[in-house]
């Protein structure tokens, strides 16, 4: 039996009960077992059933990724684990806020680049801008590196959220009662 040792990046969606400690449980499993978290986002997505969706980007060999999914699956409050990377095409998006400070030509250059990236200016003073950009993580990183020489002083990113393409849903939503 040959074992694939290539390390790959996987985006995993986990649907969990929105209860106290659930995030600690998930994060603790990753740190306790020595797995890697590249990004993690969490928010309630189904108010009727009190379900949260955790999107975690991790990397590892095929065996490790399988293990991560199984370890997530055995946590009692976990409803569903979906490996978006291996289960077909999906969309990944991240939101970025960057603060750029400066005066003069730099400000003009900033706005030009922002325009190319379809970034929105969400705050502006005479010596600063805050830009909002949405897109794939690589696009956000590219934007950051272009802004770096133009007076970038602060970055805030959400981490990846992702969803599978097509008409199927990860699980049935609560009807509410």
């Amino acid at each position: 039996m040959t074992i694939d040792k290539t390390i790959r990046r996987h985006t995993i969606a986990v649907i969990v009960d929105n209860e106290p400690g659930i995030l600690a449980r998930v994060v603790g499993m990753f740190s306790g077992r020595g797995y890697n978290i590249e990004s993690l986002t969490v928010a309630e997505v189904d108010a009727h059933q009190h379900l949260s969706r955790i999107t975690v980007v991790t990397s590892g060999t095929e065996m490790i990724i399988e293990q991560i999914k199984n370890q997530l699956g055995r946590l009692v409050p976990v409803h569903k684990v979906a490996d978006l990377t291996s289960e077909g095409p999906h969309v990944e998006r991240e939101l970025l806020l960057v603060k750029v400070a400066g005066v003069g030509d730099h400000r003009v250059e900033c706005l030009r680049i922002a325009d190319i990236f379809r970034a929105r200016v969400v705050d502006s003073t005479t010596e600063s801008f805050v830009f909002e950009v949405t897109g794939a993580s690589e696009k956000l990183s590219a934007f950051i590196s272009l802004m770096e020489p133009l007076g970038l002083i602060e970055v805030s990113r959400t981490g990846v959220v992702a969803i599978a393409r097509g008409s199927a849903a990860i699980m049935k939503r609560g009807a509410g009662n």
Partner: protein
Amino acid sequence: MAQQRTAAKAAEPAQRMTGAEIIIKALLDQGVEVMFGYPGGAVLPIYDALFKQNALRHVLVRHEQAAVHSAEGYARSTGKVGVVLVTSGPGATNAVTGLTDALMDSIPVVCLTGQVPTHLIGNDAFQEADTTGITRPCTKHNYLVKDINDLARTMHEAFYVARSGRPGPVVIDLPKDIQFAEGPYEGPANVRHRTYRPQMAADPALIERAIDLIAAAKKPVFYCGGGVINSGPEASELLTQFVRQTGYPCTLTLMGLGAIPASDPLFLGMLGMHGTYQANLAMHEADVMINIGARFDDRITGRLNAFSPNSRKIHVDIDPSSINKNVPVELGIVGDCGTVLKQLIEAWKRRKAKPDGKALKEWWKKIEDWRARDCLRFNQSGDIIKPQHAIKRLYELTRDKAPFITTEVGQHQMWAAQFFGFEKPNHWMTSGGLGTMGYGLPAAIGVQMAHPDKLVVDIAGEASILMNIQELSTAVQHRLPIKIFIVNNQWMGMVRQWQELLHGGRYSESYTEALPDFVKLADAFGCVGLRATKAGELDKVIKEMIKADRPVVVDIHVDKTENCFPMIPSGAAHNEMLLGPADEAKKPVSEEGMVLV
């Protein structure tokens, strides 16, 4: 949010009672007869409710760690959930070792911990600890009850989680104000867990593929473990039936001993680091491995890249995360061992599968040659008692009573596993995964509570026993006639053995100076104390021990230098075992091996 989960839509109004009363009622409705605990400020309302009833018995331990081990012993010898009640802060932190032990060995335990009142949580109150935070990684699941309306459901859910799927410990943290508050009670029938539904039966297509593999095997081996025991006694019977149907050899892990009768000629003995020569070599040379309820632990596999290199592997486990964790397998089957065994037996019969008789005969010839090496032999001569001899005699003199055996951790534990034959499941309680010294005495208390008329022996080392020696007092108070059989070599034997093998014989801190006089110590606690220092005294002392209807401490002075063999040194493969002291010098341990534990 959680309140909404309450499934109860009963027509009649729910009974109302205090939190403490709800706890006791829920325990009784779950069929709990006995619990192990220690009172303290944050659980006084529960102890008060306990005082006002007679149905539920409580065993007062002397340390909270022991309460959990006792509950484990109770659970392992009965198949029921063990129950623990401890106070907040130090009560809970003391329980952590026991909880971790139960997690590693998949033992169903529900541990109730007191907590400071909800309005004080997070204020560094007296005897406050973040119990759910501390126990999150050492429990299967845990709860903090902050609303009295959630209490009854949480209690029932905890029992369901503890015993279902791969069993494990569950903590319920109970703030004191919740214990006083009044709320509704609902019975277990109304509570259904929202998500947790472990898969019991295997995918039938996988069963067919398994039968294909099993029937085609030329050098097969069954490798089975604690999952079979945890699945219930019926699973052990089914395993025995299937093994006999195929005529294939079967080896068991430390956790699996008793799953098939030790006296069955198809049984090769335990495998792994201190397993038998025939079991380990059969694993190494097998062409088809049928793993049922074992988890490819590092004590079993030895060096992973040399582990059973040519076998096609089938792995049955109720926990999907056990499959392909350490060892990649060809056929992973998720399901309960008993249920899957039933499916396998049914498919084997339906397809009229037959093993390859000629190949099997040759395979058995090979195995019998290995068995003929008699890897467990030792030389008992003269006055000095060999530790193996002590345990062998204990086995021979008690086997007609089908005793329950618990152990501490170390050389004596491995010798017990090697020399004690178990004909039935649930008679062998040992700390396998965590390797907790101090496990055996409290575990024996739990076993004896469940089986008051049976012989319960803790095979101990003189170092381990001192880790929970205070529990002798518990045994005396509750009139539990447990027998503590100390194999006393004055060393932490397994530590000394490794120092001899790996650290040039520099015996750093592994000799116990100033050991107590165990006979006087037994006397001081109100137990019977016995001692044997010469081979000739051994049988008499064992017989006297069996006869006593009180707790007994037996101090057997054994050979101080004896090492535990056979042994697969860390970092070595199954076919690189050391069979005895003469092998040690020939096969020095590799550097990679030294860093392993």
